[in-house]
């Protein structure tokens, strides 16, 4: 289970855990936008400092964040290298065929590298300190304006929460089917591409059927418990804004103002 990103919530009791998921989601989206405001060393330094403070505020081990960055590290290096060798401008140090190493290229590559890493770090902070369920709630809240264009937000929210609730159940089911097929001689790990793809069939077909059966059972149970669509439903889980969310969003306002000032210079 621990390998799945969606289950990567790590319980803790730092301040950041007490924040409202809506605030955290908004902050993450803000962050991705305002990182493009940075255009010089000072602004990047500022944003790095801010991210570092956020990461430290989670009071989690550095390894957690390394795990977040690791799967994307190849992409980050690749983009940085492209910037490094294909940007022309400033002082040119070295040139060969289509590759150029210039002072602009070097700064750009470092900027891109920082930008990527910070975005990954901040989104890791978000997913690691917020339960998937809370993220779903926050997303529902963000989608609420879509009600005016007749998007069934309540139903989407229910679908999301049921989907999240069944991730571990289906994962267990998959393991069970895999083991059952293995005990009858199925081999999931060997052979070429086609052999392996074929070996997946005895796993996927039962999984599909059992999911459908589960869906039927669940819909029966829901109906028996009085579910008849989203009208007239109340909500048990309510999110409350607290003073921490005020701090959270206020710090972002300060960051934006500082960035704008530094940027002008």
């Amino acid at each position, binding site marked *: 289970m621990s390998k799945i990103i969606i289950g990567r919530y790590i319980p803790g009791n730092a301040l950041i855990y007490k924040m409202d998921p809506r605030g955290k989601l908004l902050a993450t989206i803000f962050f991705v936008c305002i990182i493009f405001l940075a255009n010089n060393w000072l602004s990047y330094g500022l944003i790095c400092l801010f991210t570092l403070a956020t990461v430290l505020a989670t009071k989690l081990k550095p390894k957690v964040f390394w795990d977040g960055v690791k799967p994307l590290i190849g992409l980050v290096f690749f983009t940085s290298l492209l910037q490094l060798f294909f940007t022309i401008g400033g002082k040119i140090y070295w040139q060969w065929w289509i590759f150029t190493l210039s002072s602009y290229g070097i700064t750009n590559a470092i900027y891109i590298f920082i930008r990527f890493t910070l975005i990954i770090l901040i989104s890791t902070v978000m997913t690691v300190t917020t339960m998937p369920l809370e993220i779903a709630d926050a997303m529902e809240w963000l989608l609420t304006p879509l009600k005016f264009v007749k998007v069934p937000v309540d139903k989407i929210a229910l679908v999301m929460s049921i989907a*999240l609730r069944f991730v*571990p*159940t289906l994962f267990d089911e998959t393991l069970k089917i895999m083991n059952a097929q293995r005990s009858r001689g199925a081999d999931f790990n060997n052979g070429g591409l086609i052999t392996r793809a074929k070996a997946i069939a005895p796993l996927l077909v039962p999984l599909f059927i059992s999911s459908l059966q589960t869906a039927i059972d669940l819909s*029966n*149970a829901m109906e028996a418990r009085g*579910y008849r669509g989203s009208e007239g439903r*109340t*909500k*048990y889980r309510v999110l409350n804004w607290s003073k921490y969310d005020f701090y959270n969003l206020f710090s972002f306002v300060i960051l934006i103002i500082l960035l704008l000032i530094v940027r002008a210079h």
Partner: protein
Amino acid sequence: MSKENIISLQHVYFTYPSGKNQVLKDINLDIKKGSWTSIVGHNGSGKSTVTRLINGLLTPDDNPDTKIIVDNEVLTEKTVWDIRDKVGMVFQNPDNQFVGATVADDVAFGLENRGVAHDEMVERVNQALQWVGMEKYANSEPSNLSGGQKQRVAIAGILAIKPKIIILDEATAMLDPNGRNSILRLVKRMKEKNNLTVISITHDVDEAIIEADQVVVLNDGKILMQDNPINVFKNSNLIHKIGLELPFVFELKQKLAENSIDIPSEINTKEKLVKYLCQLNSKM
């Protein structure tokens, strides 16, 4: 018993849309208020279908004589939601009836559907969790619970809506003996506390005999017998013929009778049997 009927099925027939065979044929069943009814029968005898007809999950075949009455209301398309408010159902597979992402969410699901205000909801959820002894697990996710605990949560979800009737649709079939006993004890306690009517579908004839006031034996979509457990299980030949087993006490009584030790028919529990046999021993 002079109590009124809370459920009454009259001339009910049922055919699944995809099948050709009639699953239920002319079911007539009365259930007294506050009683415990066990429905037993072999696989495919139509036990589950009967309960799904009661709360309108399935609709009986068109027939002018058919009538399903629950708590003085005739089941129609209009009244089906009122009736579902009064009937709580616990299903067989604990995994497939858990709607909420946490225990408290799941217990609240029925209340949410009924539009209960938030403060009252919190109170009723807490109370229901306390009744079933799961208050410590309010924020647990279903994947961290055992099967028995999930069934407790399912019962809490039903108690929260304050029903008059609880239907256990083989609710203990997937549990180990300990989980089964604790769930049954819980339902029994809740039944007495809130004056509930319980209908239990079961393969477990021992359960049927210990708890039930009335046992209904279904065979191929027909009611074969409907009486108190002692009278039903006296009929050992018939029970064996339709592929059911006798409860342990009755099996033992039969074996003793074959060795010409006759036990009076009112002895129907292990405790009574043990006591009787001890007395018999001291007399000899």
